């Protein structure tokens, strides 16, 4: 080095852009350049021979003091930076600002005679520049990182956390102090997975795919995070910045979905198992068939019921085991099934392995091109139904027999009543004639005729009933009908019972069969009488009644206007049970021989048929009232049929002869009397054979009048046929109590033949005889 003059050397030191202070071994200032005088505000003369502690009282950093001591004592050099040592010395820039400075302390000379030089460098400008740069960077950086919703960590190459953003602290619940310096790996549950990821990040320049990891929060809870990371290099250091994206929500949703899926599978499995269970254990035959009836699947019940295994059944239709009678119908059902998505029910019969047949009731539905079928074995049920039907038939038969017994007894009873009326009248008639008291004769005669007519009507009705013929309804005035019945009723019920008739005013007409109604009324009166063995009172009442909708519905009728005929008694009354059964056919409370049991049921049927109803109200020990309701009819009753006048009947021609054949002498006598009255000659025969003899003779016979049923092995029809062998144009009039048409081959009278039903009015007989004889037979 060139020896500089002392003056020049000092000038050079003063001109340095750095502070220089030289201290002697006692730390006293022996050199102080201009730069330092300017920066510290202490001139060289002021600093001379003083220690730094004296020059900057209370403001000298201990670190600088120590460094100076070490330099002077240990010959060591020190470097003191503003970064680690704030305010080493109180220095200012020329502008008066705080000066940032670094200081180095170097020993001078050799031990033990040491001094040291303290050099001060102004780093304010560069520190300031760095700070501005950093702040600018930070502003951008902060905007992204500090406010990012994701947790962001920066770790050094060893994996220790150097930085964590606010979201990271929030997410994991740690304080900054707890996180910085900790290994990033400690955050994650699966350290192996993290380790792999970390190596991948460090080894690859491009960031690897994000991984999902479970992090452990400060409070011990777990958090699902999607971790992406990349490495970067700064000032020779490798760093890794990791972004932890919160996927807890997504994870929860996925978990919920997984749970749902797994439970769904479980539920489906359960359902499937349930269905399979049903399939396996069902007592009914379950099967799935294709649309053309080929069985695809059948359950074990098939084998239990039919004995055929599924191998026998599957892959073909079941035609081979269907009963031949069923095959066609069964095919037809299947064809219908193929057409529409609808449930069908049908029955067929299938052969079992053992050869017998089982009756099956099918329910099948076509769904999605497959036929789902269920068959129930109803063989036993059928067998029981058949047995039941047989039992019912047997029961009906026995009931019928019982009914016949009832009917027979009842008819005898009814006829007895009528006969009482007739014979009573005749008896009275006989007495009056014997006494020559002719005044009452007409009355008794008409009474007897009335009873006889009713008896005739009764037999007609019985016949009609047995043949289920409908009778002829007419517009009827019920008041008049009741009045006409009064004497008969009085006679029938006897003197112990008072009969009172209460006629409704302005009674409406009704459309009804009058004979049926008469019979019904008589029946009710007889029932009433029988309910009052010790006498009492019968009230027959008529009235108009208008039923509104609710009242009508209560009695199972249509709303409207009705005529009511009521018969009340003061008798024993009926229990509810009896009322319930009162309308059942053949039900009677009367002893055998006293009632048909048909009375009320016939009344009921007649009333219903006439558009009306029958109601019973009864109280035990008080009495019973039966109401017959009949619909109002607009027409008035037509004028009473003219009583056919026997006297006006046509008279016979001269010599006209009639053969009369009947096993009943009274009938023969009666007919003979009538014929004689009309001017005919009558020949009588009691049976077929004697009649045939007459026919085979050459006696004039203009007409054969014969009963159909005859004793002696030949009936009326046969008699007529034999008679016609000799007399082909013989005219024949059959009289029969059965009103049968069986006497005619074609249900129609042949030429020259007629039929008359017993009993008949004498003028009807006369008219028919006249008509036949006059015809061109």
């Amino acid at each position, binding site marked *: 080095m060139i020896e500089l003059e002392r003056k020049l050397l000092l000038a050079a030191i003063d001109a340095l852009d750095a502070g220089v202070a030289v201290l002697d071994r006692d730390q006293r200032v022996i050199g102080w350049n201009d730069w330092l005088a300017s920066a510290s505000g202490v001139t060289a003369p002021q600093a001379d021979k003083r220690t730094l502690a004296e020059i900057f009282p209370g403001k000298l950093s*201990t*670190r600088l003091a*120590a460094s100076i001591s*070490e330099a002077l*004592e*240990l*010959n*060591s*050099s*020190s*470097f*003191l*930076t503003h*970064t*680690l*040592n704030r305010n080493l010395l109180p220095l200012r820039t020329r502008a008066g600002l705080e000066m940032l400075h*670094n200081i*180095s302390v*170097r*020993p001078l000379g*050799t*031990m033990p005679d040491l001094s040291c030089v303290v050099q001060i460098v102004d780093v304010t400008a560069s520190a300031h520049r*760095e700070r501005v740069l*950093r702040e600018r*960077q*930070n502003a951008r*950086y902060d905007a992204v990182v500090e406010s990012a919703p994701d947790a962001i960590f*920066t770790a*050094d*190459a*060893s994996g*220790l956390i*150097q*930085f964590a953003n606010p979201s990271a602290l929030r997410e994991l619940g740690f304080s900054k*102090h707890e996180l*910085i*310096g900790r290994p990033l790996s400690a955050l994650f549950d699966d350290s192996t997975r993290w380790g792999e990821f970390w190596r991948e990040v460090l080894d690859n320049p491009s960031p690897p795919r994000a991984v999902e990891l479970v992090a452990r929060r400060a409070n011990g809870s777990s958090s699902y995070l999607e971790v992406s990371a990349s490495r970067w290099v*700064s*000032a*020779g*250091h*490798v*760093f890794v910045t990791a972004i932890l994206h919160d996927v807890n929500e997504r994870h929860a949703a996925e978990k919920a979905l997984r749970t749902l899926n797994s439970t769904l599978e479980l539920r489906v499995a359960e359902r499937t198992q349930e269905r399979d269970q049903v399939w396996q254990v069902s007592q009914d035959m379950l099967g799935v068939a294709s649309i053309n009836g080929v069985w695809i699947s059948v359950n074990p019940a098939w084998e239990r019921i039919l004995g055929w295994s599924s191998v026998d059944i599957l892959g073909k239709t079941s035609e081979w085991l269907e009963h031949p009678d069923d095959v066609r119908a069964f095919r037809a059902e299947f064809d219908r099934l193929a057409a529409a998505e609808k449930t069908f029910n049908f029955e067929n019969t299938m052969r079992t392995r053992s050869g017998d047949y089982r009756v099956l009731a099918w329910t099948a539905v076509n769904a999605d091109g497959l036929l789902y079928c269920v068959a129930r074995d109803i063989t036993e049920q059928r067998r029981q139904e058949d047995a039941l039907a047989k039992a019912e038939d047997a029961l009906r038969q026995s009931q019928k027999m019982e009914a016949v017994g009832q009917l027979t007894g009842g008819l005898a009873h009814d006829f007895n009543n009528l006969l009482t009326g007739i014979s009573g009248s005749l008896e009275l008639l006989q007495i009056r004639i014997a006494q020559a008291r002719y005044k009452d004769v007409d009355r008794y005669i008409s009474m007897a005729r009335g009873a006889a007519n009713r008896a005739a009507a009764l037999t007609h009705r019985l016949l009609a009933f047995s043949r289920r013929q409908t009778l002829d309804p007419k517009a009827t005035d019920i008041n008049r009908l009741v009045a006409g019945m009064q004497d008969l009723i009085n006679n029938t019920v006897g003197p112990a019972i008072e009969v009172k008739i209460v006629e409704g005013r302005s009674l409406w007409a009704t459309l009804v069969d009058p004979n049926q109604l008469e019979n019904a009324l008589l029946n009710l009166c007889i029932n009433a009488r029988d309910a009052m063995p010790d006498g009492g009172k019968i009230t027959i009442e008529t009235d108009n009644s208008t039923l509104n909708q609710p009242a009508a519905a209560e009695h199972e009728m249509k709303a409207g206007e009705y005529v009511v005929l009521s018969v009340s008694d003061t008798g024993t009354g009926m229990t509810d049970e009896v009322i319930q059964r009162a309308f059942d056919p053949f039900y009677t409370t009367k002893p055998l021989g006293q009632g048909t049991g048909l009375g009320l049921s016939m009344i009921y049927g007649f009333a219903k048929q006439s558009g009306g109803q029958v109601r019973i109200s009864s109280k035990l020990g008080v009495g019973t009232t039966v109401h017959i309701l009949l619909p109002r009819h607009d027409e008035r009753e037509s004028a009473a049929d003219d009583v056919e006048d026997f006297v006006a009947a046509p008279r016979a021609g001269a010599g006209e002869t009639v053969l009369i054949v009947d096993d009943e002498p009274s009938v023969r006598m009666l007919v003979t009397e009538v014929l004689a009255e009309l001017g005919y000659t009558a020949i009588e025969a009691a049976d077929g054979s004697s009649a045939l003899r007459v026919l085979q003779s050459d006696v004039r016979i203009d007409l054969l009048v014969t009963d159909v049923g005859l004793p002696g092995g030949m009936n009326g029809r046969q008699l007529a046929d034999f008679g016609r062998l000799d007399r082909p144009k013989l005219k024949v009039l059959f009289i029969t109590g059965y009103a049968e048409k069986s006497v005619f081959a074609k249900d129609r009278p042949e030429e020259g033949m007629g039929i008359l039903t017993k009993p008949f009015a004498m003028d009807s007989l006369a008219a028919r005889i006249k008509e036949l004889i006059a015809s061109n037979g």
Partner: protein
Amino acid sequence: MTARPPVMLSELQLDALTELVNIGVSKAANSLRAMVGAQVHLSVPTVALVSRGEAIGILSEREIKNLVAVHQVFEGDITGRALLIFPETKSLELVRAITGGDLPLEDIIELEQEALAETGNVLLNSCLATIANMLHRSLKMSLPEVLRGNATTFFSLAPPPEAGDVVMFLYIDFAVRERDISGYIAMIMDLPSLTALTHLLDEFIERTTG
């Protein structure tokens, strides 16, 4: 290079050296404590004398390749280089420990160079100066310089020593603000310096025991 150094320290000499070093680092700890305003513990559990090649082997084996070192030259009766070595990954931690841990990462990266230099300077000064002082010798030490590289580059700094060299290898543990950082102090000396050191150590042992 893998040959054993020709001069070996006796067990007694090594113990004496270890004690001297520990006195030195405890002084350094005091200096650092004053500087950072927090408790600083430094300890040197072992001292070993190895060849340069062995030293490179030990470092390469134990540490990842990227290292950081604070380098100072010392001259006097003993001449050589002193290196305070850390894995690069630990150096930021050391800076954070010293600066207090609340500084942002960017600041720490910026501060690293100066902070390391000053910290290394304090530590090496204390060690070397204390040893020299205890041995009644004076060492002149250069200002610190921060180096980055690996074991090989650190132990092959120009100019190479004229007559072979030996490495005094010290493990050092820092405990600052609940952080534990371990590093190494390596003193590379030529053989005359080592011979001088053994003599000095013997004198020291004689003084202290005699």
